[in-house]
């Protein structure tokens, strides 16, 4: 079965690449858009560090690492599962889910595999550049364990992103349009670009345990930087990240499946 799915995924994706090649300018502009937004965030930090030495004890390079690290899972999620947004905004109310229900395949798989969002490459690219740049400035040590944990953390982070998006998008089955909710949750991720300690306790609690974006970026990043955070310091942080990713994954997938059972087609 896995073979069948992966073969289908390849076919669908290669179709999609043809579409991108047709409109190279659009692709480049989208890429540039995301790239520029992030770069300006860095220029902002650069201008700040012209005036101060350390921000709450963090150096410029350390903050760049967190910032870049936050972009990678975000970008991967954006690249692979962008269609979930359409479930939230349009497909439930327009009845487009119908056509997926007619095919003998996993519905979520069909929705996700139908689209790659190439603009996201801008985010992934900038994330990698920033992480590489800060590591070359010596903020973290490259060991085999660290490299493995790095990739594990990025995978878990991506799952957390996708799960949060899927959870709020699934609300659309009940409320018809849940786009604003997804936007709301998604925007919370911006808080995780900086160390959680700069916020008040309650905001810190929300982004650590309620909508756990701190686990996507700041908490694992601070482990790699060798800085103690509110959960202490140690590789177990990546473990907790995985536990959260799995729990959220299960909850949101079930939510989606439950939503499908209450889904009613639109119109004729």
């Amino acid at each position, binding site marked *: 079965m896995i073979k069948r799915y992966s073969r289908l995924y390849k076919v669908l994706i290669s179709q999609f690449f043809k579409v991108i090649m047709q409109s190279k300018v*659009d692709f480049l502009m*989208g890429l540039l858009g995301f790239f520029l937004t992030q770069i300006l965030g860095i220029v902002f930090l650069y*201008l*700040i560090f*012209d005036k101060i030495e350390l921000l709450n004890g963090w150096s410029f390079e350390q903050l760049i690492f967190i910032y870049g690290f936050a972009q990678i899972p975000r970008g991967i999620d954006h690249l692979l599962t962008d269609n979930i947004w359409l479930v939230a905004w349009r497909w439930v109310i327009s009845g487009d889910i119908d056509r997926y229900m007619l095919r003998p395949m996993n519905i979520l798989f069909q929705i996700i595999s139908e689209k790659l969002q190439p603009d996201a490459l801008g985010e992934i690219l900038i994330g990698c550049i920033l992480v590489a740049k800060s590591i070359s400035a010596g903020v973290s040590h490259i060991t085999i364990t660290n490299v493995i944990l790095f990739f594990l953390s990025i995978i878990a982070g991506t799952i957390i992103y996708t799960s949060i998006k899927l959870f709020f998008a699934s609300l659309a089955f009940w409320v018809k349009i849940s786009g*604003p909710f997804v936007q709301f949750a998604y925007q919370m991720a911006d808080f995780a670009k*900086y160390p959680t300690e700069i916020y008040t306790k309650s905001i810190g609690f929300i982004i650590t345990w309620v909508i756990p974006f701190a686990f996507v970026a700041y908490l694992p990043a601070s482990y790699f930087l060798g800085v103690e955070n509110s959960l202490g310091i140690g590789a177990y942080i990546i473990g907790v990240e995985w536990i959260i990713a799995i729990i959220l994954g299960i909850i949101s997938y079930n939510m989606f499946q439950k939503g499908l059972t209450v889904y009613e087609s639109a119109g004729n």
Partner: protein
Amino acid sequence: MNKTLKIYKPFAMNELKRQMAYKASFYLFLVISLFSSFISYFLWMAIYGSTDANTLGGLSQNEMVIYIFMVYVTSSIVTISISEWVSEDVVKGSVAMNLIKPIDYRMSLISRAIGTMIYQFMVPSILVWIGLEVYKVTVLGMDLTHLSNIILYLLSSVMSFLIFVLFDFCFGMIAFFTTYIFGMLMVKDALISFLAGQLIPLSFFPEGIQRIFDFLPFSSMIYTPVMIYLGKYQGSELIFVLSRQVVWVILLYILGDLIWRKVTKRLVVLGG
């Protein structure tokens, strides 16, 4: 004058009604848009907490709080993206209908933008603004902003609004050449948030770069009214920044006119 008002007022009123229709999502977006202001707030608090200096970039910590939230207030009434409407009209082809009607397309767009502006001013902006003034007096222990500053700020904001929409109209003309304007919009938003001082006060930039900004219209969009509100401009400097805004309004008006004439000459609409 009266006739013009009669023609374009419905555009503004319609937009106002349209906005009112989607209240729930509007309020949610309002909270979302305040997120980034709160992130900046906490970030700046941490920044001021990390230095012994009383002022950074010419602003004290309290002034920075006012700066952050007045940027929010100003942005919500100034940055109304009419280029998205242009792109919608072009993609749908309804721009053709606008061409055969005896109305000025740009004026109709600006009227719609005024409708949006009034709504955004009434609902989020004024509440955030009042909240800010209350916070200022009770928590920060400062005086209420002087009435003359408020009047000058409002005057300057209206010009900022005109500068923004006139600029955005020129920008929206790109829609006639490409159908995918989303990427361009992102680039525009990113650049404006930076060059207009939404992200960081322009006084944080090195001197040389600030001189360059003086020759661009962006600083007149957000930075100027907010600094006027803070009372950072006095006497001849104040007159200078206000008249610079007037000049930009005139220049962008003429530029938009020229581009519009060029574009409509080569416009091909299929069908209809």
